[in-house]
C-alpha cells in the first residue's frame, strides 16, 4: 500500500503532529509525503529526512500558502491517483482538509485513529472517548486522520526520501486568507509538552489565572492548558483548551487545578501518564481519574507549591 501523508508545517519547520502521522502511515505501507505551501523547499528537504520516508512531493505556490482546503484538496486528489491512503494529523488544519479530500474521492473518512489493526481496520474514539470503536473500511482508498498522542513520533532525522516537484492545481478562487492572531508561545506547545499545568473556572479571572498558573508552569517547564469553562469565561484564549473538542493531550504529568472534571475535559487528557488534581471539592469527578489528589484551597496551595518546588 502506498500512503500519502500531508505535512503540516509552520515557519519553515515540520510540525510534530506530522511525525505521529508518519508512524501511523508506515504501518500501512510505503510512506510518501506532500509538502504544499509557499517557499517550502526547506520544509521539503527537512521532510525527506524523516525516518521511513520514501518520497516527498512538493508543491510550491502562493495559493497553497495558508493551507486553504479549497486549494490544497484538489492537489491531494490528483496525487491520490497513485496512492492508496491519504493520512493527515488530526490537528485543526488536518481536520479541515481531510474530509474535503475524502468527499472528492467518494471515500468515508476514518477520523482520529488510535491504532492501525490492519490495512483496512482501525480503532477510534467515539462519544468523547467513552467508547472505542473498531471500524473496517470498505472503500478502495482510505482517508485517515491520526490522533497524535496515540502514535510515537517518527524520528525527524535518518531518512533519505527523494524530493519531487509537483505542479500546484492553483487557486480555486473560493476563499482567501485574511489574517491570523497566533499566540506567541512562551512555553512548550500543549500537544507535545511533557508536563502540563491546566486551570479551570475556579481560578476566578484572567489575572488570577496568570498569577497562579503561569509561575507554577514555568517552575516545571510545563505547557499551560485550561478547561472549556476557563476559556469560555475569557481567562485564556481558545488555543489553551483541552478536551473533546479542544486539544487532546497525553503528557507524562498533567496537573489539573480547579478543574472539576467534566467528561468533555477528561476526554482530552485521560491518557496522560500521571494525573495530579488540586481541588477544594473532595467529591469532584477529577479525583476519580487522578493518580495523586490534593484537596485544598487552590489560592493557598498553588502559591505554596510554586514556592517549594
Amino acid at each position, binding site marked *: 500500500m502506498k500512503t500519502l501523508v500531508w505535512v503540516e508545517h509552520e515557519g519553515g519547520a515540520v510540525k510534530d503532529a506530522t511525525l505521529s502521522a508518519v508512524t501511523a502511515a508506515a504501518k500501512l505501507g510505503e510512506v510518501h509525503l506532500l509538502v504544499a505551501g509557499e517557499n517550502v523547499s526547506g520544509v521539503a528537504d527537512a521532510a525527506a529526512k524523516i525516518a521511513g520516508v520514501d518520497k516527498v512531493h512538493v508543491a510550491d505556490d502562493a495559493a497553497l500558502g495558508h493551507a486553504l482546503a479549497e486549494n490544497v484538496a484538489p492537489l491531494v486528489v490528483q496525487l491520490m491517483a497513485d496512492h492508496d491512503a491519504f493520512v493527515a494529523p488530526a490537528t485543526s488544519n488536518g*481536520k479541515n482538509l481531510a*474530509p474535503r479530500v475524502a468527499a472528492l474521492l467518494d471515500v468515508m473518512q476514518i477520523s482520529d485513529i488510535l491504532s492501525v489493526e490492519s490495512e483496512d481496520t482501525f480503532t477510534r474514539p*467515539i462519544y468523547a472517548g467513552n467508547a472505542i470503536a473498531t471500524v473496517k473500511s470498505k472503500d478502495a482508498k482510505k482517508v485517515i486522520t491520526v490522533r497524535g498522542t496515540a502514535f510515537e513520533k517518527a524520528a525527524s532525522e535518518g531518512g533519505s526520501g527523494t524530493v519531487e516537484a509537483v505542479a500546484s492545481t492553483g487557486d480555486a478562487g473560493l476563499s482567501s486568507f485574511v489574517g491570523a492572531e497566533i499566540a506567541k508561545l512562551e512555553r512548550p506547545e500543549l500537544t507535545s509538552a511533557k508536563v502540563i499545568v491546566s486551570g479551570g473556572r475556579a481560578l476566578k479571572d484572567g489575572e488570577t489565572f496568570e498569577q497562579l498558573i503561569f509561575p507554577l508552569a514555568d517552575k516545571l517547564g510545563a505547557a499551560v492548558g485550561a478547561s472549556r469553562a476557563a476559556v469560555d469565561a475569557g481567562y485564556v484564549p*481558545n488555543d489553551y483548551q483541552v478536551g473533546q473538542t479542544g486539544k487532546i493531550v497525553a503528557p507524562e504529568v498533567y496537573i489539573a487545578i480547579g478543574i472539576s472534571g467534566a*467528561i468533555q475535559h477528561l476526554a482530552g487528557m485521560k491518557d496522560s501518564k500521571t494525573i495530579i488534581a488540586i481541588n477544594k471539592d473532595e467529591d469532584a469527578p477529577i479525583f476519580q481519574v487522578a493518580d495523586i*489528589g490534593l484537596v485544598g484551597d487552590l489560592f493557598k496551595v498553588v502559591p505554596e507549591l510554586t514556592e517549594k518546588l
Partner: protein
Amino acid sequence: MKILVPVKRVIDYNVKPRVKADGTGVDLANVKMSMNPFDEIAVEEAIRLKEKGAATEVVAVSIGVAKAQETLRTALAMGADRAILIQTDDEVEPLGVAKLLAKVQEEEAAGLIILGKQAIDDDSNQTGQMLAALLGRPQGTFASKVEVEGDAVSVTREVDGGLETVKLTTPAIITTDLRLNEPRYASLPNIMKAKSKPLATKTPADYGVDISPRLETVSVAEPAKRSAGVKVADVDELVTKLQSMGVAA
C-alpha cells in the same frame, strides 16, 4: 439570503454513554436525547443573522429517525422558519449525510449552510467539509465569528495556534465552534408556535442518494479505565511525589 441549518439528534451532552454488554455499540435505550450542542450554536447563528437582516429565511434539516422531528421542533422554537426531515432508521455516515444535504441545497439554493463542527456521538468532524467539497463551495470550519459582507462572508476560525480569518464567496459552508455564540432557550410561546410551523418529511430515496455505509463497526469497547489513586495530605507530600517522579528538582 436563505440559510440552511443541518441539525442532528444525539445523546444529551450531560449523559455519560454506556457501552452495550455485547460490544455492538452504545446503549441509547431510554437515554435522554437532544440537539447536538454545536448544531444548537449553528441554529442560533442563523437566527441572529436573520434578526440582523442579513438573512431572510432559516431552514432546519435533519436526517434520522422519526423522533428527529423533536430536534427540528426545537430549532423551529428557537426561531427557524421551516424544517425538513429526511427520515430513515439506518445509521447514516457523514459522507451519506453530506450527499443528502447537497441534494437539499440544490433545491433550496441557500446562501449559507451553517452546521456544527462535529456531532458529540461519533466525533467525526467531517460533514461540513464533505458538503463543501460535494458542492464545490468554500468552507469556514470551527468558526468563532461570522460576518456577512455582501456576497462574501468573513469567518474567524479557532485553530491550534489561536485564531485565523478567511474570506469566502457565498454560497459557503460554515461549521461552528463553541465560542461563536450562546444559544437561546426557546420560550414557551415560541415552543407552542413551533408546532404549527411547516415540517416536510422525505426519505433518502426521494433524493436518489445511496446511503449504504462504507465503514463496518466491528466492535465497540469501553476504554481502559483509570482508577483513582492516592490523596496527599499537604503540599510538602505533593512536592516529594513530584520529586520522586523526576518532574521537580
